[in-house]
């Protein structure tokens, strides 16, 4: 009984210590492999950004937990304080910067690509599927193609498979495994298999959270300098992936 009481007391004290340190809630989508997705076995999120985020938190001495949130509401829910950061394959762009702030990019400008059922699809005049509120959707809207928007990335690919759209436009790293494993059903559109787009992916934070942004910026710089960020990029995106110089 005495040991039990002692153990309980010890637990109470350490629990108090743990909560004294601020926990950072990291928002992610959990539907965008290999950036972020849900691990079958554990039901927890995993992927490039999860591993990177955990490494950054460790360097910055922060306790972090991950929160899943639909892409549609990922910025509004950050701004209203449901979580503190976004790491969800979100490219840095001006439109987003009016609402939130970003750290420095933690990937080089990752190319986007068009995939379709045949290589000769007209991606500038046909119907192109893209995820809502992405830089890819913005790009399609400018090309003169008819834009078909979907709330989650998987649906954009499904739309091409069932003939609803002629092609899908998304991050190449997201599409690559899907195209490779489709058994020839999906192919890259000729001349549009590598479209440079965006300024690189960064971590989104509330504009009022400058201190936290600086902490993460420092950690990203450190990981860029010692090469551990490049290692992570190669691990998740393959040997051919763009890395930092």
């Amino acid at each position: 009984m005495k040991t039990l009481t002692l153990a309980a007391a010890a637990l109470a004290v350490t629990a108090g210590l743990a909560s004294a340190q601020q926990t950072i809630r990291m928002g992610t989508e959990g539907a965008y492999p290999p950036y972020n997705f849900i691990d079958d076995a554990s039901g927890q999120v995993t992927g490039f950004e999860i591993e990177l985020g955990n490494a950054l938190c460790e360097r910055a001495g922060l306790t972090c937990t991950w929160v899943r949130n639909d892409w549609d509401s990922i910025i509004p829910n950050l701004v209203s304080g449901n979580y503190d950061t976004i790491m969800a394959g979100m490219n840095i762009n001006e439109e987003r910067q009016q609402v939130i702030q970003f750290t420095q990019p933690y990937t080089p400008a990752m190319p986007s690509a068009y995939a379709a059922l045949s290589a000769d699809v007209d991606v500038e005049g046909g119907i192109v599927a893209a995820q809502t509120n992405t830089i890819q959707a913005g790009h399609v809207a400018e090309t003169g193609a008819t834009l078909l928007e979907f709330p989650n990335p998987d649906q954009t690919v499904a739309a091409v498979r069932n003939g609803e759209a002629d092609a899908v436009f998304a991050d190449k790293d997201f599409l690559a495994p899907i195209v490779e494993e489709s058994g020839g059903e999906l192919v890259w559109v000729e001349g549009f298999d590598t479209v440079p787009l965006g300024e690189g992916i960064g971590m989104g934070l509330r504009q009022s959270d400058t201190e936290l942004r600086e902490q993460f910026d420092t950690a990203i710089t450190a990981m860029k300098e010692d090469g551990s960020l490049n290692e992570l990029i190669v691990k998740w995106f393959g040997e051919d992936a763009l890395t930092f110089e």
Partner: protein
Amino acid sequence: MFSYCSDPSQLEGLVWLSCYLTTGTHMLFYASFGTVLLLLAITAPLALLLGYGGAMASRSGFAPLRWLGKTYTSMVRGIPDILFFLFVPIALDQAFEWVRHQVLCDSSQPVRQGNDFVVCAAAKLPLNSAADWVHNAYGLFLAIIAFSVVFGAFAANVLYGAMQAVPRAQLETAEAYGMNPRQVTRRVLVPQMWVYALPGLSNLWMILIKATPLLFILGVEDIVYWARELGGSKTSAFAYPHPDWRLYYFLALLVFYLLMTAISERVLGRVTARLSRGQATLGGEAQRKAVPA
């Protein structure tokens, strides 16, 4: 789950399926059925309670209370559900956090800073350091409030109508026996109104069951979220790659909802029969005649 599941890529057929259906994500999917049932189990009585309060207020002799009851029912019934579901959780959450901010923190700090809604760490609800399940429970709690308020308004109208439908003669008899208004309500009006309320309430129950996928809109990871997530095509980045199986997952949900409504109809049928007993309604009369003299 099973020991033979350690390397799914080597498995085939039913063995593969047995492993696939017992992954961590599938367990979360099954648990989310519990979330839906929990929502129903809490919302239904809460909505009934709100409805009863609303109906009583609408009948009140005290004008401000009557206005309150009437405003509640007509306002909530007039606003599209989805709008209400989107509005209530955000508004409640920010209201709670604002109050906590004023009490627990330096209240000279503005809550709105540019685009941001910022309260100090101690005022967060739930606290950032709280366990995952606390955050999930809080989300569900906000959803339950939104559901209860909406369905309570409909229930209030149903119960109000039911109270008006109890034959005046019944109440008059009670009055003639010298009961005061309170006793008339408790002993005669309320016991008799249920049979009139039941068709409306059973409708509401069915609509409530069918409205549960709205949880998905509120960001609660319910069965619709998991069906879409698990059904989507999976590449070899996942342990169990498969093509687009959303159709099968949504089919499973379809069966679940049909089962729910089928069971509900049986139960409601029994309740109707029980409540009709001895009532001066067609159903009650039929029961009386069916009993051999």
